[in-house]
């Protein structure tokens, strides 16, 4: 049903896309579950010397005359934070695939990550930067959290600009314990409040991973020359895409992303630049692999 990228792009049901993308994606975000003391029952195993006596199941001993120890599933202590940039520039559509835009792509890929995190039993939370404000969905586990996050993602609209640097800095306390932070943005502003926040989180020893979304037209500098353009975040003028402008465009853009990539590498933030015309599953896998954990 969701065979082509265009069909996927036209689907608004995040659940369906997640199932479609994650089919065959067996790998998780990080090493699997640990077993041990915990709440959720997992299995019995034979008693071994050294096990705590309080973990022995006495009823089973009475029935079988053997010592069994209750093993419980221990919840993962890694929190996964999904960072969605929903500023106005994220509304940039793909010029070749109708109905596909950066926000849709970012939202869907983060939804897939949420599904993976939930499958692993990790707590996951969501940060949406939109309309000069930050919206937090605190980290939690379970299917209800999944629904909450999906609803937030589906509700996000590309509008406004980044929140002020002070606002972001003041709200970085969300990640106390070691966390995984997945940030999906176009990173057209660098340095920006977003970049400062990510670098700061990295310095706080969190695992930060960035996905830089681009469109094929941006990479090829192949915009229609007979249309006028304006910057969605700064209404300060009109731009045209002539032949001589294309060279300037390429130069400026390469310079910008070179700076961004260099800073990310310097701070050990794995970054993947992906055109949104590529299949979601491929990009998701490449992003996870980029971190060296897949």
């Amino acid at each position, binding site marked *: 049903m969701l065979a082509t990228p265009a069909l996927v792009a036209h689907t608004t049901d995040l659940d369906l896309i997640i199932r479609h993308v994650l089919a065959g994606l067996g790998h998780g975000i990080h090493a699997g579950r640990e077993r041990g003391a915990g709440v959720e029952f997992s299995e019995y195993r034979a008693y071994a010397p050294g096990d705590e006596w309080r973990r022995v199941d006495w009823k089973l001993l009475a029935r079988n005359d053997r010592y069994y120890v209750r093993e419980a599933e221990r919840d993962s202590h890694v929190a996964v934070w999904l960072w969605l940039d929903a500023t106005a*520039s994220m509304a940039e559509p793909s010029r070749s695939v109708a109905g596909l835009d950066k926000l849709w792509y970012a939202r869907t890929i983060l939804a897939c990550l949420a599904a993976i995190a939930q499958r692993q039993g990790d707590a996951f939370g969501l940060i949406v930067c939109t309309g000069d404000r930050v919206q937090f969905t605190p980290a939690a586990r379970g299917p209800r959290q999944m629904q909450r996050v999906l609803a937030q993602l589906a509700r996000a609209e590309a509008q406004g600009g980044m929140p002020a640097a002070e606002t972001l800095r003041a709200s970085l306390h969300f990640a106390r314990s070691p966390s995984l932070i997945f940030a999906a943005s176009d990173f057209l502003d660098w340095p920006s409040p977003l970049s400062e926040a990510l670098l700061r989180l990295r310095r706080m020893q969190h695992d930060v991973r960035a996905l830089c979304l681009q469109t094929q037209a941006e990479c090829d500098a192949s915009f229609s020359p007979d249309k006028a*353009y304006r*910057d*969605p975040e700064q209404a300060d003028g*009109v731009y045209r895409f002539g032949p001589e402008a294309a060279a300037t465009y390429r130069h400026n853009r390469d310079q910008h992303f070179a700076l961004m990539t260099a800073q990310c590498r310097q701070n050990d933030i794995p970054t993947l630049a992906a055109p949104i015309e590529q299949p979601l599953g491929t990009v998701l896998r490449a992003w996870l692999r980029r971190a060296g954990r897949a």
Partner: protein
Amino acid sequence: MNSLWWLALPVLLLPVWWHRQRRERIKAQPLATARFLPRTDPQQLRVWEWADRMLLLVRCLLLAAVIAWLADLVVPWRGDTVLTGATTDPAWAEQQIGEAGFKDARRLRLATDDALGWLREHEREWRDGAHLLVLANQPMAAAMPRFRHSVELRSKAAPFATSEHHIAIVSPRAQQWRVMFAALDGPRRYLVDDAPNEKSELIIWDVPQAPPAAMRAPLWWIGDASAFPELRKAPSVDGLSYMDSTRGRLWGFANWPPKDADSARALFETWQRLHYAPLAYPAPSQALAASPSAPFVPGSGALRDFLAIALLALFALERILTHARRH
């Protein structure tokens, strides 16, 4: 003079200009990576496209209505017409209409007898080539009337309305005065009373005693100046001294009552000219050919009420549309 307002019509270009400019700004597409491009001059992007056509239309109409109101717009819409005066005999009018072949023409009954005067004010309401038949007791104008349409005037003089006027004579020579009024003939009839009353239009005071203070009349003829000493210092024309007093206008003359027919006629004509409206002389029936050079008089403001209502409605509509567009 009013029609000079039509020169203000280029004002209509203003809303068109504003709408076009707004369109140009909206025209640019958002492009996230526009920041990597060199800025261009927006001048090159100007294209003639129309935004908010409804609003633009209403605004243009509003301005046009204002100008039309100021210029006193007249739309020629009347065709062949029969104009009938206020006092025209309907039976006679029907007969004349049949004779002149205006059976199918519209009929218009005026509130006045001066149909040609009314027609001059409203002539712009008639289409070119319309024929008019005027049936009225038309007073004769000083100059030959000229119209841009061919007008046939059929005039029938109404019999003069007789009217009664009261005159009071207080004089030892009352008989001589009465002779003068008895000789008069015409539609105005003069009734001579012995004592002044409130209906008296003329009091002839020919006694040395002063009249009672409460006695009033529009005109007094004073035969004996000793009753009105102030009349001696009054200005005079041909021996007739005149002044306005609280009792009314006073005329004094030393040699009254008039001794011969000429002086009596002169006095009578002066009196009639100055104190009574002239009796209209009916214009003879005639066909007035259309003269293309006839001057148009300024419009009669026939459409002003309608235009004012239209202005109000358009203004309200414009406000509503602007509000709706903003929200």
